[in-house]
């Protein structure tokens, strides 16, 4: 199994621990990755607000790079997945669009033929590798942990374009959590928005969302929360303290990246997974599983 790895900006910027843990976990799972060092930002749904054709062209350039490698793309960010998935869907289905975008790429000698698939690491593990196979890699079952899944918006909606999980009742994270012997926590906020896109300009709304979602998870006795999107991670982790002040309640809920949780079950050390790089301490989680080690 070989993929062109599209890390996205966050894993190379504010969330280096996501990159670090992805590398460990994919290697252990036998997924060979070629990192797309020359790929540009997907646009995160922001560039398209200013100029949709520009956003499509930037992504078509990335797809063309993977096409040249003869590989499909693996994303590790829910937002990248949503934005690139949407771009790819439009380029493949809208009449005349691929030609129009290729005309923009032509002067630089780049052409996309519409033959690349974009898949999130979560989908590759649950859909292609399979939950049963994943279980064989578990050396440190996370039996004591109650984990709240937090999907984030772009890996679920619009479902017409993404189509992996049912947006009304997604199950892939729950399946994965169970496969690692942890207990998935059911709460309404699991499919809602973390508020990240608003955090610079409308902080009160953004931390309102953080507070509401995390409180629900906490009320269901979650020990930690796991998310396949580093932007959700940033908002839920970095702004958690301010959300606590807003709702007047201590949350102290560690937020884990998807490969960090898998990595813990595979026996990687907290240091290898970059668990000390979070603002909300992950000590509780580490202590709880090391009781078993």
């Amino acid at each position: 199994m070989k993929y062109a790895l599209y890390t996205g900006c966050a894993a190379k910027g504010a969330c280096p621990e996501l990159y670090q843990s992805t590398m460990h976990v994919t290697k252990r799972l036998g997924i060979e990755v070629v990192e797309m060092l020359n790929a540009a930002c997907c646009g995160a749904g922001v560039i398209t607000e200013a100029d949709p054709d520009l956003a499509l062209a930037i992504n078509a350039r990335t797809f063309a790079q993977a096409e040249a490698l003869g590989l499909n793309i693996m994303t590790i960010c829910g937002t990248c997945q949503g934005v690139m998935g949407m771009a790819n869907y439009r380029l493949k289905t809208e009449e005349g669009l691929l030609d129009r975008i290729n005309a923009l790429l032509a002067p630089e000698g780049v052409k996309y033929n519409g033959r690349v698939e974009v898949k999130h690491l979560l989908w590759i593990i649950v859909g292609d590798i399979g939950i049963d196979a994943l279980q064989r890699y578990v050396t440190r079952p996370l039996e004591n942990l109650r984990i709240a899944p937090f999907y984030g918006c772009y890996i679920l909606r619009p479902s017409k374009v993404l189509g992996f999980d049912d947006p009304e009742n997604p199950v892939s994270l729950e399946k994965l959590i169970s496969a690692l012997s942890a207990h998935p926590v059911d709460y309404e906020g699991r499919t809602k928005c973390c508020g990240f896109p608003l955090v610079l300009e409308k902080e009160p709304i953004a931390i309102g969302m953080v507070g509401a979602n995390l409180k629900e998870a906490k009320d269901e006795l979650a020990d930690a929360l796991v998310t396949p999107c580093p932007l959700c991670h940033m908002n839920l982790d970095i702004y958690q303290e301010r959300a606590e002040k807003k709702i007047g309640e201590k949350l102290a809920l560690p937020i884990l990246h998807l490969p960090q949780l898998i990595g813990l079950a595979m026996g990687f050390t907290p240091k290898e997974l970059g668990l000390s790089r979070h603002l909300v301490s992950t000590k509780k989680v580490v202590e709880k599983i090391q009781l078993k080690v």
Partner: protein
Amino acid sequence: MRVTLHIQKFNPEIDSKPYEEPYRLDIGRGTTVLEALMRLKNETDGTLTFRYACRSAICGSCAMEINGTEKLACMTQIRPELERHGEVRVGPLKNLPLIKDLVVAMQPFWEKIQSIRPWLDPLPHEQVDPIAMRNAYKAFNNVEACIMCGACVAACTVYEVSKSFIGPAALAKAYRFVADPREAAVPERLQRLQGDGGIWDCTRCNYCVEVCPKDVKPMEAITLLRRASIQSGLTQTLGSRHITSFVDIIRHEGRLNEGLMPMKVIGFRIKDFLRILPLGIKMFLKGKVPFPFRLKPAIPGIKEVRALFKARDEQRKGPM
């Protein structure tokens, strides 16, 4: 087929809070939730309260929460719901005040619609561009299909925490007038949407697009309003600066520079700068802030990316 519907009940004169009541009934292959509710009301529980009128997805009265998602009861068949969720739970729309059982007060919804002035300020007939008129229907991007059922407002993750948000339905309607070639007051309309509660409050979660029974795509309408705002020179809100700063960084570096981005968006707004500074320091101490002014920040193929930006500048005639 005999099934159980779990329906939320609430009578404000008797109950202190809503509760769920199981109702058993026989259904056929295509029985809808609305048909089941009507039968239950006629045959089992005359007190069961819900709104409906047309029974064919035109009036928008019977929007409710079915298995956690906002849907029209008349459009939702019970069997596929059972197959998808293993159960059928029916409740009122969220985010709007509960009156009784499945009925919510729509007053806050109508107030938002009114607030965007849902009528045309017409240009004199001779000033209307006839060619633009020919394409007007397409320009509305399907927002005129809205039946004002309130599903999007009930699903809106921003409205849930911030009731001052104008919300998806009303903003979609606002877009319809901005896109209308006969409208005289487009700049004023855009100006009114810049403040708190306006277009920059949307978090782009896509819920409204997902639940809309008429494919109105309110979030797309909000995106179009944002684009129209920037193009008309309304570029000083933090929301619009978010977009222009982001585009600018990608143009120069190819990737997002997370150290630079907040500074560019905030600029010289001291209060906002002081607001984000403490978190910036905490992130820096955890190694989460890349140095904003690196010597070689750009991706190797930045020339290609810049060429793309330039090609689009020329097509659009002028930079963003």
